[in-house]
């Protein structure tokens, strides 16, 4: 399975980094970009590496991440 897009809702994300931590393929990484609450939200490092395991969705405390399948 391949991901079409990994959407990170900047306004919901609190920048906790749990998604980056639980991702088994290092698809996500921390960024220096901040949202309106001055929190660092993550960014997609390598979309192709995503295996659509959706652990990021399962562990995200804030419903801020969504993996769209191809």
């Amino acid at each position, binding site marked *: 399975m391949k991901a079409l897009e990994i959407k990170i809702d900047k306004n919901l994300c609190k920048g*906790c*980094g749990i998604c980056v931590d639980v991702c088994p393929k290092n698809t996500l990484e921390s960024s220096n970009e901040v949202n309106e609450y001055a929190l660092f939200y993550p960014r997609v490092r390598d979309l192709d590496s995503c295996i659509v395991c959706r652990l990021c969705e399962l562990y995200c405390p804030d*419903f801020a991440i969504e993996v769209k399948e191809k």
Partner: protein
Amino acid sequence: MITANYIKNEYIRRMPSAFCPGCGDGQILNAIARAIDHLKLPRNEIAAVSGIGCSAWIPSPYLRVDSLHTTHGRPIAFATGLKVANPKLKVLVVSGDGDCTGIGGNHLLHAARSNVGITVIMVNNGVYAMTGGQVAPTTEHEYKTVTTPYGNPAFALNVSEVVAAAGASYVARWTTWHMNQLIRSIEKGLTKKGFSFIEVISQCPTYEGRILNMDHIQMLHWFRDKFKTDEKGVFRIGEFVDIEKPELTDELQKIIEKVRK
């Protein structure tokens, strides 16, 4: 495929939540919603009751079901009344460790004893977080908190063991690292006839983190590495009780039938 977005749209009243970044409460909310979805329970058959504390906010206001946000320590007693009044409802209590075992400890024991068919999810972060990091009944010996600045002179309560001894039908303990196991346990709890109790060890990045000198990611790793279902772990997790026994509202109904015959 169940996506977080679907869960959010279907079961979550609103976001963003008031929880601190990295708080396990959001994960537990996610787990509860997924369990309800797996069971295909209609939302109008679920009532969520909570007391006071950060974790009390998991169902109220975020879970999109009838929710009763009550006074400190009392949610289990409120839930008992709700369940007895309408046994068709799946009554879910979400309570913190202070709420559930400190001020509300007596209610917990007696709900387990009477085997009333409610599901209690106790979020255990070992500290009173909402009020600013004071010692809790679940704080380990010698840990420093704002009210035990020289170390906790008392010892932590093993809540699941106590609830098991009190007579609950189902008792399990997981951590926020064990999301899938937690979801399965909540499903089991919600379908269990009698009193079900699920303890969730959760990370409090703000206060517990300060005590343990860890951030929330480190705490999750700690859960992963040290909390095991067998002797390998420093802390024991897993399912401790899973039995069938007569449930309170059924017994009350039997009394009515006996008396009215």
